[in-house]
C-alpha cells in the first residue's frame, strides 16, 4: 500500500523518532511504513492519521490487487 507518510512528516518538521513517540511505536516501524515495506494495522493507521489531523485515506492510498 502506498502512503504519503514521509512527505507529511517532513512538512511538519517531525523526525521519525518524534512521530514514533507520538503514536507509541518504534522508529523502525515508522521507517518500514514510510518505505512501504510494512502495512500498519487499522489502529496504527488511525493514530497516524489523527496525529496529522487528517483522514486515513489522505495518508494511505489503497490499490486493488491485480
Amino acid at each position, binding site marked *: 500500500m502506498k502512503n504519503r507518510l514521509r512527505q507529511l512528516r517532513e512538512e511538519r518538521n517531525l523526525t521519525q*523518532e518524534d512521530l*514514533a*513517540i507520538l503514536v*507509541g*511505536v*518504534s*522508529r*523502525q*516501524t515508522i521507517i*518500514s511504513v514510510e518505505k512501504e*515495506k*510494512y502495512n*500498519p*494495522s487499522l*489502529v*496504527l493507521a488511525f493514530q497516524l492519521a489523527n496525529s496529522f489531523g487528517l483522514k486515513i485515506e489522505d495518508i494511505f492510498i489503497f490499490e486493488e490487487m491485480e
Partner: protein
Amino acid sequence: MNFRRNITAIAVTLLILIGMGIWLISQGNIAFGSSMIGAAIGVGLVRYIEMKKIREMQAKGLNPYDERIVFITGKASHLTLTISILLAAGFILIGSVFGPELQVNPYNFLGFCLAVLILIYVAVYYRYSKDN
C-alpha cells in the same frame, strides 16, 4: 518485569551456570565446564546490552514491542514450526527406511534439536525483519 528484576534474574541464572561450569571442571570435564562458563558470560552480556537498549527506548517514549515486532515474531514462529516439522518428518522417513539404527544420548540429541530450532528461528526472524 522491570529492569532491576530482569537483571537479578540474569545474574542468578549466570551464577548457577558458572557454578555448574566450575563443578564440571573440578570433576575433570574441563572442555564442557569452560564452554559452559564462556557461553553463560556471553549470553549474559548480550542480554544485558539488549535490555539496556530496550530501557533507553522506553525512556524516550518509544515502544520496542510494537505491532510490527508482534507481526514479525508471529510469522517467524509459524515458519520455524513448519520448517521444523518438515525437517523432522523428512529425517524420520529417510532414517527409518534407509538409515541404520543408532544409539544416541537423549540429552545431546535434544540439545542439538534445540540449537537447530533456535538457529532456524533467528534466521527466519532476520529475514522477515529485513522484508518488513
